[in-house]
């Protein structure tokens, strides 16, 4: 099996690579590439993302044909794709970080700044927070409800159809911290930095 981590200059992806390699050992081949053919022929794709919504969308668009290759993989061929952090946020129609920017539009919704309630909540939302699993999702196999995950973000994905939300976390409001729509998965938290529980989620995704 081939799992491809999309390398599109979206910031620091070493931790994502290390965690997938740790879980995959020698059983699964982990590719790190922006090669369109490799992405299309892969069994699973991981879309990381750090920095701002706009910088990630721009970086995706900077590689000619990449958005189309990802759409073919996830939308037409319905193969499993995992978006992490801004990788998840880009599923939305639109994001408001820096400036209004069009997302991939795979899951209807918008990405807005977390309401800090006039400074009551520090931003970015940094650190370990518990997740409330609200939907039976395959990536949560053997993951206990209220497990701790590592978060770093100031913006949140607000999907139109709430049934795509698979877990929420409490920070100012109930933030959608993971989504699942058919073959498309996304986590706002960083499984690659969430210790053993995070590695288990990665393992679950690889085993899908």
């Amino acid at each position, binding site marked *: 099996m081939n799992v491809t981590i999309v390398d599109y200059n979206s910031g620091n992806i070493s931790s994502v690579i290390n965690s997938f390699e740790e879980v995959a050992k020698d059983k699964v081949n982990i590719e790190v590439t922006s090669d369109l053919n490799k992405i299309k022929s892969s069994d699973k794709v991981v879309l990381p993302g*750090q920095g701002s919504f706009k910088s990630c969308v721009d970086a995706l668009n900077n590689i000619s044909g990449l958005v189309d290759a990802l759409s073919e993989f996830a939308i037409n061929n319905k193969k499993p794709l995992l978006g992490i952090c801004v990788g998840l946020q880009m599923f939305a129609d639109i994001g408001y970080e820096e400036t209004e920017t069009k997302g991939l539009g795979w899951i209807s919704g918008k990405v807005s700044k977390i309401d800090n309630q006039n400074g009551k909540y520090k931003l*970015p939302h940094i650190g370990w927070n518990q997740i409330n699993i609200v939907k039976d999702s395959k990536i949560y196999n053997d993951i206990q409800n209220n497990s701790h995950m590592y978060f770093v973000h100031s913006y949140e994905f607000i999907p139109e159809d709430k049934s795509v939300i698979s877990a929420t976390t409490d920070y100012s409001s109930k933030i959608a911290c993971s989504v699942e729509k058919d073959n498309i998965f996304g986590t706002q938290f960083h499984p690659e930095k969430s210790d053993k529980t995070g590695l288990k989620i990665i393992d679950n995704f690889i085993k899908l």
Partner: protein
Amino acid sequence: MLKNRIIPCLDVKNGRVVKGINFVDLQDAGDPVEQAKIYSDGGADEICFLDITASNENRDTIYDVVEKTSRKCFVPLTVGGGVRNVEDINKLLNCGADKVSINTAAVQNPEVVVESSKKFGSQCIVVAIDAKKSGDKWEIFTHGGRNNTGIDAIEYAKKMEDSGAGELLVTSMDRDGTQVGYDIELMSKISSMVNVPVIASGGVGNLDHLVDGIKLGNASAVLAASIFHYGKHSVKEAKEYLDSKGIPVRI
């Protein structure tokens, strides 16, 4: 609910831990990778390396340490010490650091913070503020506490937030190494002034100091070095103690 973080810090010099955990079962007590792994297995919420390598020819040793650690520890790794420019930050991130802390370079050229937070995202830019009390205010020191800049620490903290710092690591130079506790007044003043998380550092001698840093200093995270060294306290003990005092921690 978001938990308060406990961050053990390891001083690394020429690729070796200077002060470290003195456990009998350690194969190599000076190996930062092995020490970091003990901390992360013990429940550390993040790991911090402070590179105190003095000579330029040995500066590259930290990259190897970071690379090896990031393959074994799957909690966030912050690396600081001697970070001069965007290229240094880029190299550390590529080696597997999740955050880079900038100290002297941010004072000398705040544009480094602006530029790097734009390039890599605020989430990985930590500005380290070394402050010392002077009359009724605090002043910024650079070069590991040797140079007084005369800059007001509270105003500087605000400026660094505006420049794009995702977190502030605030160390009291008066308290560092004394084990008498954090400078609570400094922590709470900065924490109330900025909206980004503050990591308290400098002066921890016992577990109550960690409690004070969070409860009185309003820090989001507490960093400590020596109390975790030589097995005085484990990270697990620290967390259980904080939990018993009603502080939300990841256990």
